[in-house]
């Protein structure tokens, strides 16, 4: 089982957590208790209510032994800061972050992080539909 950390329990974070938690060892972190509760009984993993800019919270989530960390909050800068820090400090193999702003995606692309941009992805899918 892979150890996976998901930061941000929005639509995408929640969807991914529910999908993965049946097969993998998933920990999800969010600053809102309410959205964590909304995961319901189908979620089979660990929930952490806390602030990921606090490194103690990341360590509580077991970031040192994570195989993959997903940063999926709606805040690009937060995703970038925490993504960079986890890659550098804990050497996580795969760090995947959502960055909604295309200009920012370009500026940080060379960091050895996998940056996912929603607009770009949807445009690519739509192009294939023609």
């Amino acid at each position: 089982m892979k150890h996976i950390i998901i930061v941000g329990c929005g639509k995408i974070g929640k969807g991914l957590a529910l999908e993965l938690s049946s097969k993998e060892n998933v920990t999800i972190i969010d600053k809102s208790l309410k959205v964590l509760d909304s995961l319901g009984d189908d979620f089979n993993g660990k929930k952490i209510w806390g602030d990921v800019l606090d490194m103690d919270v990341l360590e509580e989530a077991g970031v040192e032994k994570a195989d993959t960390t997903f940063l999926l909050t709606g805040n690009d800068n937060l995703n970038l800061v925490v993504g960079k820090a986890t890659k550098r400090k804990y050497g996580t193999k795969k760090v995947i972050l959502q960055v909604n702003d295309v200009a920012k995606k370009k500026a940080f692309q060379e960091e050895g992080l996998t940056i996912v941009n929603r607009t770009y992805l949807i445009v690519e899918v739509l192009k294939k539909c023609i």
Partner: protein
Amino acid sequence: MYIVITGAGKLGLVLAKKLKEGKHQVCLVEKSENLCNKLAGEVREIFLIHGDATYPDILKEAKIDKADVLVSVTSTDEDNIIICNLAKELFGVKRTVARVNDPKRLPLYKYMGVDNPVDSTSIIARIVEEEASFTDVMNLLSIKKGRLSIVRVDIPRDSPIVNKSLKEIRLPPNSVLVSILRGPDIIIPSGSTQIYPDDEVIAATLIDMEKDLIKALIGKI
């Protein structure tokens, strides 16, 4: 020096004005258009840029590559960290200073290479704690983010050091008596100087020794 400040809130603005008075060149970057328009009329002598400094292009516009220091004092910690990080790694700025809004995030600031993260909450808490707990002790000055403090202590009549000379008084390590204020006189003490009741003593101490020092001077806390 050329200093770029990001975030034109109360702190950023006061800082920009002070540095400008000190004959530094200052550029202030602010995200909010409304605030920029308001400030444009108010601070003519400071170079003001409207833009989000977490974008490298905006930092470039502020001529960040020429800056000696970058100071990031926005109210958002992730923005401060990213701005300092960009300034350092992308533009080679030697010194970055930032305001830490939430003290729990201080380790992340340090880890991400912010040279001087200033944890204002903890500094203020320390000062308030001092003001609240000791009535006859007054903090005059804190240096190096509060690690060294200069205090004024009123010596009560029942103090254990009353009528003793300085060489008889045992002070905790890393503490020194700098001066004695007695009525109108200012005394720079030597080993034979005696302490009298109602003297005001000026002492310098490292912060972790402060409580011990005060105990030695007034006998209780």
